[in-house]
C-alpha cells in the first residue's frame, strides 16, 4: 500500500493549489449571462402558457376550477395510479401541451365509481375532498346519430346501468338524459355498445358521451 502511495506521489506532478481559486468579483458579462438564463426560464413558462391551457378536460372528482387546478397539479400521477377502474389517464401532448400529464377522465377505459381514492392520495389539494352527492364530473348527452336506440331500436343498456336514474326512456323506448340528475360518472358511456354493434358501418364513437359542464353536448337536437 505504502509503495503504491509513493509511486502515485512521484507520478503526480501537479503543483499544490493554495489560496483562493475562485474570485467572486461579478463581471458585467457574467451578470448578464445569469439574468439571461433566468429570463430564458421565464420565457419558457410564457411559451408553454401560450401553447394553450385548454379548458374542458373532464377532471377527477373534487377537482378545483381549471385555473386553480392548473396551478396546483404537479403531475405526480398518484390519482391515476390508485384509480381502481383505470378511468384516470394523463392528458396527452396532442391534447394540450401545457396540460400534459395532468389527470383527465377517459370513459372509454372505465367510469368513476366515486371511491374518492384519487382525492385521498392527491398531495397538493388540486383534488379537494367532496361529498359523493356533490360531485359533478360532467354531464352525459346522447348522440342521436350514433345511439343504437335512436337510429335503430332495442338498446337500453345505458338506462339500465345508470345508478342515478338520470336516463329515462321516451315513448319509443329511446334514452334521454335528465341533466339535473346526472353526475357524469360515465358508466353509461363506458358500457355503451354502439361502437361494437356498429363496427361494420362507418359510425365510430359512443352513442352517449359525457362532456364537461358548460361544454356543448353532442348532437342532441
Amino acid at each position, binding site marked *: 500500500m505504502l509503495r503504491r502511495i509513493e509511486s502515485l506521489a512521484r507520478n503526480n506532478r*501537479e*503543483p499544490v493549489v493554495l489560496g483562493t*481559486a475562485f474570485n467572486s468579483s461579478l463581471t458585467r458579462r457574467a451578470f448578464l449571462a*445569469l439574468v439571461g438564463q433566468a429570463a430564458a426560464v421565464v420565457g419558457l*413558462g410564457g411559451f408553454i402558457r401560450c401553447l394553450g391551457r385548454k379548458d374542458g378536460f373532464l377532471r377527477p372528482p373534487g377537482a378545483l376550477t381549471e385555473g386553480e387546478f392548473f*396551478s396546483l397539479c404537479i403531475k405526480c400521477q398518484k390519482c391515476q395510479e390508485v384509480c381502481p377502474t383505470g378511468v384516470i389517464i394523463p392528458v396527452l*401532448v396532442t391534447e394540450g401541451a401545457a396540460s*400534459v400529464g395532468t389527470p383527465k377522465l377517459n370513459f372509454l377505459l372505465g367510469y368513476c365509481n366515486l371511491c374518492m381514492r384519487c382525492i385521498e392520495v392527491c398531495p397538493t*389539494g388540486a383534488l379537494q375532498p367532496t361529498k359523493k352527492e356533490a360531485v359533478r364530473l360532467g354531464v352525459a348527452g346522447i348522440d342521436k346519430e350514433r345511439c343504437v336506440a335512436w337510429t335503430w331500436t332495442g338498446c337500453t343498456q345505458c338506462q339500465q346501468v345508470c345508478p342515478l336514474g338520470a336516463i329515462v326512456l321516451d315513448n319509443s323506448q329511446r334514452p334521454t338524459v335528465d341533466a339535473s340528475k346526472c353526475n357524469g360518472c360515465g358508466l353509461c358511456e363506458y358500457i355503451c355498445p354502439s361502437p361494437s354493434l356498429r363496427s361494420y358501418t362507418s359510425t365510430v364513437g359512443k352513442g352517449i358521451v359525457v362532456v364537461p359542464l358548460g361544454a356543448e353536448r353532442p348532437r342532441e337536437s
Partner: protein
Amino acid sequence: MSKIKIRMVRVLTASIVILVILLGGTCKLGYGTICSFGVWRISFTCPLGFLQMVLASRNLLPQLWLSVALVVLFIILLGRFFCAWICPVALLRGVFSGKGAVNSNRGKREGKEATIQLRASSSANPNGLLELPPKGTVWASYSRYAILGGALLSSFLFGFPVFCAVCPIGLFFGSLFAVNRLLFAKQPSLELLLFPALLGFEIFVLKSWCRSICPLGALLSIISTLNCFVRPTIQKDLCLASQGTHYRVCNEACPEGIDLHNDSAGSPLKDCTKCLECYEKCPARAIRLAILR
C-alpha cells in the same frame, strides 16, 4: 481483491427507487413518482414543486408543509444525497456516459482549462503556490441559481409550476409510464417519442445539466447549508496533500468540484452530494465522514 464500488451501490439504490415507483404505478399501489412519493401516510413532496405551486397558486398550501418538512429534514441529515443516490437523471448520465461517477457533473473542458492554466502559471510563481485565474468562474457556477429564480418567477407570473413541465425527472417517469400504458393498456401515444427525446436533449445535449442548469439541485444546495451530518472532512495527519505532496485524488474524484483541502478554493461543501467518491478513492484513507459538523 474484488471490492464493491460505491458507484455500483449508487446505481443500485437509484434503480431500486425506479423499480418501486414503476411497481407502484403498474400495481396501483399509489406511491406516486419522485414529484410526490408516499407510502401509507408518509409522503415526500418535491420542495421545488412546492415552492412553484405556492407562487403559482398564491397560497401557502399548509397541506404540504409536513411532507416538504420531511424532505428538508432528510437534507439536513444527509445533504444533497438525492442527487447522487436517487435521482434518475444522475443514473442515466452515469450509465450512458459509460465512465466516471454516476453524477459526472464536472465539465471536461473546465477541468482541462484549469490544468493548463495551472501549468502555465506555475513557472511564473516560484514558490509553487498558485491561484486559479478568477475570470468570473464562480458566477458561471451560479447559473443554476439563476434558473431556479427564473423558474420561481415564471411560475408566479404564469400561474403554473413551470419547471415541472420540463423537469427531466418528470420526463423520465412520464416516458416509463407511457411505455407502461402501451404495454398494459395498449394505448400508444406521442409521449413515447417526445418525452425521451426531450429528456435526451436535456441530459446529453445540454451536457452540464446537473452542474449548471438543474434548479432542483440548486434548491437542495441552498437547503444543504443546514446539513450537519456525513460531511467529508480531511484528517490532516493522514492526508498526503497536507504533508506537502501533490496529491489531489479527492479533488479529481469529486463530481461537484469541491476542494476538501481548502474550503474557499472549489465549490462550497453544501454542494456535496455524498457520493463518497473521495472517501473511496483516497489512497491514504484520510477522508473521514464526520457524523456531526
